[in-house]
C-alpha cells in the first residue's frame, strides 16, 4: 500500500533521513521507533507531503506521490497527526473535526454528523461544543486523532499520540487505536512509549541517525544488538549481555 524507497532528506550539512526504505501492506499497526533526532518525524513529513525528499521515491497504492501536495495525499487517503498538536484553537471541538470531515462530505449537515460520530469514537463526545483551545493535553491528542480520522483515511500516520499522557490516559486511548485498525485502516505510528509499541504493533521499523537499522516483530527488534546500541550507546549490548550472564 505504501512504499518508501530509498528516501533521503538533507538539511544543509545534516542528513536527517538517509536512504530509508519502508513498505506497508494494507491492515495492521506498524511502529516506527528510534532515539530522539533519528529522523522519524522528518520521514513522516515526507510521506504526508510537508517536506520534499532530497532523494528517493514514495508510492501509495502503486502511484508515485513523491511530488504531490499534502492536500492531494489527504484526498488519496493518507491522514496524519502532528507531534506538536495543532488545534484550530478558535474553533469548537466539533468544528475542528468537521474540517476533516468536509474532505469527503460537502454538505454541512453530513460533515457535522460525521464529526460527532468520530468525536464519540475517540471519547470527545462530551467536549463537542467546547473551544479546542481549552482542552487538556490528552484532549488535544484525541482531537488530533479525531480530525485525521474524520478524513476517512486508508493510511493513518500517528506521530506520538501517546506522548505527554499519563498511564491511565494511555490505557484509555489504546483500545481506540485498536478499534481504528479493526475497521481496516492501516496505521503507521511513531511512538516512544515502548509498552504501547509492544502492545499494539505487529511490526516495527527502527530508525537511528537517519538510517533504517532494523525491522521485524517488536520483541525481536528490542533484542537486536544494533537497536540497543542505537538507544544506549556503543558497547551497551555487550555490557547488557555480560551483566545478564553474571546475574544468570
Amino acid at each position, binding site marked *: 500500500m505504501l512504499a518508501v524507497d530509498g528516501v533521503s532528506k538533507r538539511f544543509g550539512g545534516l542528513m536527517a533521513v538517509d536512504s530509508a526504505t519502508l513498505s506497508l501492506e494494507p491492515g495492521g499497526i506498524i511502529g516506527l521507533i528510534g532515539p530522539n533526532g533519528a529522523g522519524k518525524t522528518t520521514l513522516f513529513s515526507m510521506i*504526508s*507531503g*510537508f517536506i520534499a525528499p532530497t532523494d528517493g521515491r514514495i508510492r501509495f497504492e502503486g502511484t508515485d506521490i513523491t511530488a504531490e*501536495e*499534502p*492536500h492531494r495525499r*489527504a*484526498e488519496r487517503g493518507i*491522514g*496524519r497527526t*502532528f507531534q506538536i498538536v*495543532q*488545534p*484550530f*484553537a*478558535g*474553533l469548537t471541538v466539533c*468544528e475542528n473535526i*468537521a*474540517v*476533516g470531515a*468536509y*474532505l469527503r462530505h*460537502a*454538505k*454541512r449537515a453530513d*460533515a457535522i454528523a460525521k464529526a460527532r460520530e468520530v468525536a464519540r469514537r475517540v471519547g470527545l463526545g462530551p467536549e463537542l461544543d467546547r473551544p479546542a483551545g481549552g482542552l487538556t493535553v490528552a484532549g488535544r491528542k484525541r482531537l488530533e486523532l479525531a*480530525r*485525521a480520522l*474524520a*478524513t476517512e483515511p486508508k493510511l493513518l500516520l500517528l506521530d506520538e499520540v501517546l506522548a505527554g499522557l499519563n498511564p491511565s490516559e494511555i490505557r484509555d486511548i489504546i483500545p481506540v487505536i485498536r478499534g481504528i485498525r479493526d475497521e481496516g485502516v492501516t496505521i503507521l505510528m511513531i511512538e516512544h512509549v515502548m509498552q504501547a509499541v509492544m502492545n499494539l504493533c505487529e511490526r516495527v521499523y527502527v530508525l537511528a541517525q537517519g538510517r533504517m537499522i532494523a525491522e521485524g516483530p517488536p520483541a525481536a527488534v528490542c533484542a537486536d544488538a544494533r537497536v540497543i546500541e542505537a538507544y544506549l550507546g556503543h558497547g551497551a549490548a555487550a555490557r547488557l549481555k555480560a551483566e545478564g550472564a553474571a546475574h544468570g
Partner: protein
Amino acid sequence: MTARDLIPIAVLTILAALLPLVVTSSTVLNFLVFTLIVSLGAQGWNILGGFGGQFSFGHAAFFGTGAYVTAILQLRYGVNAWAGLALATAAGALVGWVIGFLSFRSGLRGSYFALVTLAFAEVFRILANAASFTGGAAGLLIKLDVRPANLQFDDRAVFYWLVLAFVAATLLLTRWIQRSRFGAQLVAVRENEDAAKALGVDSLKVKLRAIALSGGVTALSGCLYAQYFLYIDANIAYGSWISVELLLAPIIGGVGTVFGPVVGALTLHGLGEVAKQFAGRIPGIDLIVFGGVLVLAVAFARGGILGLLERLRDRGRGMVARGTKEVSHAGR
C-alpha cells in the same frame, strides 16, 4: 442555511429600508449612503481578513479598481452604468485573484502579505495619477444624466435602497460562507494552515477564492462610490484612507463575524459625525475619534463590539444560571 441564520439579516434589512420613509434630511441620507458603501467594502475586507486571516492593508486596490473601471467604461466606451457595475465587480475579483496568486503562491503571510497589498494599492494610485487614460491628477467626472438606466437617481433614497440591497446580499453571502465547506476550510487556514493541509484543504485554492470574492465585493463598493459622487481621482479611489477605513470597520465591529463590518462602519462614522457636530472647527476631528475608538477596541474589546456584546451576554447568562442555582438551593 437555516431560518435562524437568515432572520437577523432580513429583519435588519427591512428596518434599514424603512428609514428613508421617516428620515428625509439629505444630510442624514448622504451619511447613510456613504456609511453603507464603506460597510460594503469592509465586508469585502472581512471575507479575506476576518474569515481567512489574511490581513490586507491595501484594499484600496480593489475599491479603486471598481471605481475606475466603471468610470472609464462609461466615459471612454459608452458602456451602460449597470453593465459597468457588473464589469467593475468582475474586474475587482480578477485583480484580487492576480494579487493573491502572486503573493500566496510565494507563501507570503502576515505582515508580509499586508505590505505587499499596500504596495499594490500605492502602485495603482501612482499609475492612475499619472496616466492620461485614467484622467491623471484631474480625475474623472462621470457625466450627470439622472436616469435610472444610468444608475443615477433624483431621489437619494433610491440610491440608499440600492446600496442597502447590495449590503444585504453580501451579508447573505457572508452567512453562506460561514455555513459552507468553503468557509470552514477558510477559517481552518486562518487558524493553522499546516493542520488544514493535512486534512485535505487546498489552502492556495481556498485563499485565492477568498481574495477574489473579497476583491469583487470591495470593487462593487468602489463602483457605487463613483456612481454616487460622480467624481473620482487617484487619491480618493486608490488612497490609503479607504484601505484604513475598510479594515478599521471590521476590527471595531467584530472581525470574522457577519455583522461586524456594518456595526463597525456605523459606529465609526456615527461617532465621527457627532464629533464633527460638536467640534467641527477642529480639522480631522473624526479621524481623532477613529483613532481613539481603535485604541479602545484593541485594549478592551479584542473581538470588536460584537465580541464584547457576546461576552457580556455570556456573563449575564452565567449570573442568571448562578442565580437560579442559589434559588434552588434556598428552596431545598
